[in-house]
């Protein structure tokens, strides 16, 4: 059984049932893959809105959406993915891109210098 859900209902562990395309029609994911937090974030960054998943009917979204706790970036790639999302409206904006480049530099440095969790290791989410 295939269910269509919006990306904000997607949970790690769900299995993707059909290919996912970006807004330009390019295939992002073929189908059959298991969703992970990282994959969900990547799909959000690429502008996917809805996905088809295999299996049981997903749980109805709660009346009041629960906060998505901020997730800390654990790799340089995740830092860049979160920055892509944060700065998605400023692709051709010189000053904002300067700010982005500096943020990336500091967050990557920070990742390298400490393994312990701290407040600013990079995060992005919604309340």
């Amino acid at each position, binding site marked *: 059984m295939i269910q269509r859900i*919006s990306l*904000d209902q997607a949970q790690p562990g769900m299995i993707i049932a059909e290919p996912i395309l970006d807004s330009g029609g390019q295939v992002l994911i073929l189908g059959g893959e298991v969703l992970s937090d990282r994959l969900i974030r990547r799909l959000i960054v690429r502008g996917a*809105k809805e996905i088809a998943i295999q299996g049981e009917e997903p749980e109805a979204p709660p*009346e*009041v*959406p*629960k*906060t*998505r*706790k*901020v997730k800390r*970036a654990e790799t340089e790639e995740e830092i860049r993915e*979160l920055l892509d*999302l*944060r*700065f*998605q*409206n*400023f692709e051709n*904006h010189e*000053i*904002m891109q*300067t*700010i*982005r480049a*500096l*943020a990336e*530099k*500091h*967050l990557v440095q*920070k990742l390298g210098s*400490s393994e312990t969790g*701290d*407040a*600013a*290791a*990079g*995060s*992005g*989410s*919604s*309340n």
Partner: protein
Amino acid sequence: MATAMEDYKSVLASAKDLPTLPNVVLRLHSLIRDPNSGAAEIAEVINRDVALTSKTLRLVNSAFYGFAQRVDSVAHAIVIMGMNKVKSLVLTASVLDTFKNRGFESFDYAGFWEHAIGTGITAEALAKHLKSNVTEDAFVAGLLHDLGKLIFCQYFPEDHAKVMHLINEQQLTVSQAENQLLGFDHTLIGSWLAEKWKFPEELCLSIRMHHEPAHARVHRDRIWLVHAADVFTRALGIGNGGDPFVPERHRQVWDHFQLNATLVDTVFQQALDGMANAGEFLELLKN
């Protein structure tokens, strides 16, 4: 038909459990402005509130300030930090204490306060570099800039849920989503509370105008510092600002402060270093 804004005002006007601040805070605002009041008098006013004094001294002695020796009295703190800085810490301690254990399920409370503290640290760091004369107040202005988000979520949970859906579905910022739904945003709600608390005008305005700095006519330095600090803190992903997007910096602010990559680079480093030592601020929200 009543507008959403009128509805909101009347709900908050009749709310019995809105957070309140201790009297000492109000007293301090007026004392600091009075040129005849001295350090001894200010210390005495603070000392009357024993619990608040002890919390303020916890912040003074935290890793964030890194004093070599323990500071064990308000009078001592005033000598080494100055009256304005101590006032700012008393206000910080009282706000964090007022909001302790007031978290609720549908809101990332810790993430909210991390973003608030990060914005305070960043605003203060930026103010120091700009040799601003509002440096001591910059922290508090940054700390409180998003106060309205807390009140919004707590008192208007249904609208908050709609805003969250709008953010997810249309990739909007919190402020854009609130404006779309209500015609106003959390900055207005936050400034109502600040006015109720009888905060000085400059603080009310920095809460009210941090998303529309170009409209500021007075107290621009404070408002613009908070605006810039919010952008920087969001860029670094410190805490949870309610949506995953960085708000656009206003060119006027950038030009006015003559911001450049070297300065931003330094402020980013200080913001991250500051956050690494800001544990005691978050602890005050717990006990």
